[in-house]
């Protein structure tokens, strides 16, 4: 008999709205383990995983929050449906009565949509005040994607600003998901589009490098594993696709290598995540289940059933010395966030 599916370690309750997005604080940034969530009512909440309670909660946006991301100690990016990406300065977590976070910087996103921004943090020395983070988000019309560099310390925006072009924007549709990655010291930006394709540009010369056709339905999310240059994508259908990149000199070649159906009749996939150690990947489905696969062989390992409504976000924490177990956080529209410890 198969073992029963695992239970979450615990769940975080008390969000006032549906949980749209969750993100861990990178433990190397030296704080208690924190999690941040964004809700459909515009609230951004940071949670302490030690006490399992909110540390602070503030109105981040006027409309629902679609993405949040930590950017180092006490810095937080949030993106709302009001078309803004905001960089927040959080108070130190020690003080009990934390003052409300301060907005350091605001970026206007012209494109209306559900596409989450992505960050690329350069590990440059903190002494220089120059931009240390690149933010990428969808652009308008011929500009498919746009990047802005930001110094998270001060909130100053600066160069380089890239605009990644696309021909016949009506053919690819809206941008649904973006990722920035670096390989062989070159930065690439990848975007998943409504047509079901993933397009990759080289940032330095804003040139479209490759395009891989994955889904018939609009693509909703994709994740990349740079160690093996492989990615997984989900769309508004019960299928996941695996694709690969290959860097051949200055050429980037991409191909779809595998397609597999998800267990159970889920109408779609809302988020995917690959664990940093490359062992497992998690797929959050619209029907409220999270499906876990081995990343190498894509063997189905577990179906995590806990949430009663659709999953909005899945994310893995990063391993560190103080907390060797890698946690999986799942945010759902049932206003709960569940924390899992799987195959540790």
């Amino acid at each position, binding site marked *: 008999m198969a073992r*029963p599916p695992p*239970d*979450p370690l*615990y*769940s975080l*309750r*008390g969000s006032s709205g549906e949980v749209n997005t969750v993100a861990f604080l990178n433990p190397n940034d030296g704080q208690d383990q924190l999690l941040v969530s964004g809700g459909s009512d515009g609230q951004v909440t940071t949670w302490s995983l*030690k*006490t*399992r*309670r909110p540390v602070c909660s503030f109105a981040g946006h006027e409309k629902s929050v679609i993405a949040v991301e930590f950017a180092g100690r006490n810095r937080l990016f949030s993106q709302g449906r009001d078309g803004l990406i905001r960089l927040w300065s959080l108070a130190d977590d020690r003080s009990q009565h934390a003052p409300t976070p301060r907005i350091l910087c605001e970026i206007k996103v012209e494109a209306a949509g559900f596409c989450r921004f992505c960050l690329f943090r350069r590990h440059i020395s903190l002494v220089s005040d120059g931009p240390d983070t690149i933010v990428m988000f969808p652009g308008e019309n011929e500009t498919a994607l746009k990047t802005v560099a930001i110094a998270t310390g001060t909130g100053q925006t600066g160069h380089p600003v890239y605009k990644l072009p696309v021909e016949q924007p009506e053919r690819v549709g809206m941008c649904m998901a973006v990722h920035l990655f670096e390989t062989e010291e070159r930065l690439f930006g990848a975007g998943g589009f409504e047509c079901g394709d993933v397009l990759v540009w080289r940032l330095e010369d804003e040139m479209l490098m490759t395009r891989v056709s994955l889904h018939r339905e609009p693509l909703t999310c994709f994740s990349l594993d740079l160690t093996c240059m492989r990615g997984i994508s989900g769309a508004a259908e019960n299928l996941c696709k695996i694709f690969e990149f290959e860097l051949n000199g200055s050429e980037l070649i991409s191909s779809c290598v595998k397609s597999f159906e998800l267990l159970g009749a889920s109408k779609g996939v809302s988020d995917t995540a690959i664990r940093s150690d490359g062992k497992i990947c998690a797929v959050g489905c619209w029907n409220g289940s999270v499906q876990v696969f081995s990343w190498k062989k894509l063997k189905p390992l577990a179906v995590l059933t*806990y949430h009663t409504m659709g999953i909005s976000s899945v994310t893995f924490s990063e391993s560190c010395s103080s907390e060797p177990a890698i946690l999986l956080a799942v945010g759902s529209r049932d206003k709960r966030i569940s924390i899992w410890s799987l195959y540790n």
Partner: protein
Amino acid sequence: MILFSNSASSSSSDSPWSTAPSLSLPGGLVLNGRPGCMTIRMPPFPFLSIASLFGVMLFSASDALAGEAVDAEPVSQDVRLHCQVIASFLPGVVTSIAKVILGDSKQGQTILSMAFLTWSSVVATAMSDRLMPQDMSLDMFQSKDKDMGKRQLIINQDKRWWNDTASKVHHLLKRILSIGIHSHWKLRLSVCQFAKMLLQNCNQSLENCVPLLVDVLVAHLNDDYKQVSVFSRQALDSFSVIVVARGSGSLISMFEDNIHSLATRLPRVVRTADDTVRLPTLDLLVGYLRLLGPRISSLLSSSAHLKRLSQALLQILEIDLSDIRIMEKHSAVLGSSTESALYHPVTEETFGHSHYRLQFRHFNDDHIKAAVIKSIRLLGCYGDLSLLVDHFADYFTQSSHWQKQAVLIVNELVRGCAQIGLDCSEDGFLHCSVNSKEAIEEHIMSLLSEYVSESHWHVPTTIDTRMEDFRANQSSRSLAAINVASPNGLSAQTLNSNTILVCLLLDGIAGFAEVLGQHFDALLMTALYPILEKLGDSKGVISQTALDTLTVICQCCGYSSMNDLICHNADYLIDAVSLNLRHLDMNPTTPRVLKMMLQHCDKALLPLVDDTLHEVFTVLDGHFDDTALLLVPVLQTLVEAIHYWFPSTNRATVCEWHEGSRIHEKEKVKACSISDFLKEYCHKNLDMEDGEGGVKDEDFDQTGEQNGEADDFPEDKKEPIPGHCLLTTEVLDRCIHFVSSKNARLRLLVLSVIQHGLLILAATTDQLLPQVHKLWSPLVKRFADIEPVVLMKVTHDIINSCWWHCGVFGLQALDVLCTMAEVSGDFIRRRVVSNVWPALSTSLERMNGMSLQSGKLYKHTVNFKLQKTVLTSLDVLICELDMGDVELSEISAAVLPYLDVRQPRELQEAAVRIFKALATADPDATWLVLSDAVGCCLLPPHPCLTSVKLGTERRPKGIQYSGVVMDLVCELSCCIWRKYIM
């Protein structure tokens, strides 16, 4: 003699030392010494004055000694000589005084205490450590003093002298101290002062006496008089400071040996001796541990010591498992007695009566327990906590015999490391505990997780609940099947042992809270759920202890009440509950936690648990049979709690139906209804004739309509249904399925849930009526349960309990029916008439013969209860439901036999109430039936009217009516006359 009596008389009123003149010449001393010595030899007559005499001369000596700079310089020659003079008289003086002390047991405490003080002063002066030569071989006085007179008297204090004298003094001391503890506190204080003085001044010269002296002080540590105990504690503490400062190894090792030997004989003493011996022995142990202080940790690093001590403690603390109170159940079998706990959430009284105190096998005295616990706490305070905890954890795992004691000891060790109950404020120097705060916190964390781990926390304390449920499912009448032999083979002894273990674990958690204080908040995440689990335990002892623990936690973490505690930490609880509900079969205790939360909180909790309650509903929907018995109690508590939290205000009368207030209202209405009708009729006719009446009426109607519309308007907006009503509706929806369950216990529970649920919904008719409709048909089937009661009674007496429960069951169904009638009234009238009426009236008719002329014992039978309930509920039904003539006459016929005087009193009264109710519903018919039955004729109010003789011959034979019935008839007759004639 005369010379000294002066000073004696002047000083006798005060302390002997206070007014002494200063005679510091050594020469004078010599002269003084001899007469004193001589006088003592003829005791006991002038003892007081002699004591003063010695006081005088000792004072000067000790004063001189004390006057010297403490250690910097050697003692000056003068003083030395001075003391030496006294030393020459030492043997004589000490033996004489010892004789006084040991002499007449009746002599006053003043003399005795004086004797003690004098003795100690003499010895302390003559044998002071500071006089001890550094190099014993040197004869000090030979060259310096030329006075031959004195030389003769002064003895040569060489090494041999010191040793000899010490052994002699030791001998004497032993004899003096053999007289034990005195009854007068001042004397005890003097004994302590005596010991203190010797210890302070002579701990090197009289090293062999130190144990004796320490024993004296230690024995007085727990004295009833504060002066004595505080003094001896201070004396011990200052001595231990000396010891620690000097680092004198021999003393320390002597203490350690003493502790070892004490520990060895302690179990024997506790087992066999009586309290007068045990307590001093334990006090000694406490005293020694206190004396060793921080050195305890090095003592315990020796495995021999550790083993001996722990063995002793484990053996002493053996727990008595035979106490019957351990077995006491907390909640009633039917599980419906939660109300008392619900209404008085934290007060002690609700549980107080069954408060259990740990019983030890070898002793009962609280003082002994306190002493043992104090010694353990001292160990915890000074010992290395990790070493000790590990050590006792070994015992814990080794055998189940040691488990409980080991837990008890660990609990106290932890308390000790925070110096709880060690009154360190008075000592001041206790603060040098070896365990750092962080280390303690870490230990507590690991201990807590160990305590609440599955294998320790969930030891079976009752017959396995899962087994119980399993059996419940197998036989529908499980309530009767209480086997004496536990099915899972656990003896009562083991169960009791486990119960105590759980209590100790709970107490341990309370201890952790005490130690950590506010910091314990962080551990609530782990601790609160298990404690609530135990709060809902069926064993009274366990739930009581859990309540105590929670109270302690509230205090330590700064929560004002348990409600506060639970509401603030509801997130942790709910998280655990909802996770465990996913595997209910593995966590059968989870519903208990939810139940306890509902029971001990106020309505602020409701929004917090809403989520989880829906999970409960989902589980109930998913797994029908096996889990219902676990979850329905939660629903029951929920509806009871809601009913309590939201008392329905719209229908205030709901709860007081038996008060009869409604009957009066209706009576008024009925009495004047006919005349009113006639008046109104005439009025209307007149209006019609006027021709304007129609218009007026229309106007009236219109305004009425307008009013109606105005009234309706807010209703159209549909005020949102309160959350608790929605919740109740959902609960009732689930209950419908269980009304017909095979399991009798479940059916009873469900009926109780329905009853409360209906009362909650009484305020919102929109919710109520559909529910009543849905509940009706399953409920009516339950009335069939009434019949088997009667049948079974006749056929089978063996399965007593079975039919009893069915009886209870039918009664419960009737209760629910009454509630239904109250809240929904007319809505169920027709159904009652067609479905319930026949069943009730036939059963009443059948049973009236049984109760006729029955004895007192009949009142304890089920039949009686059934009859009584049926009769009382009929009363309500008649009031609430507007019955037709046929039904009323049927009922009156069925109830009539119960008016017989030979029926039990309660039944008669109930029957009379029914007829009163009938009279309000239909006075004429009732009067007819009654007057018919009684056979009286209607007497006219005025002689000019002829009496009416009603010719019906339906009078039932052989019924003897009481006066009450006659009164009733007369009352009715008057009423009728008034109505028709006047």
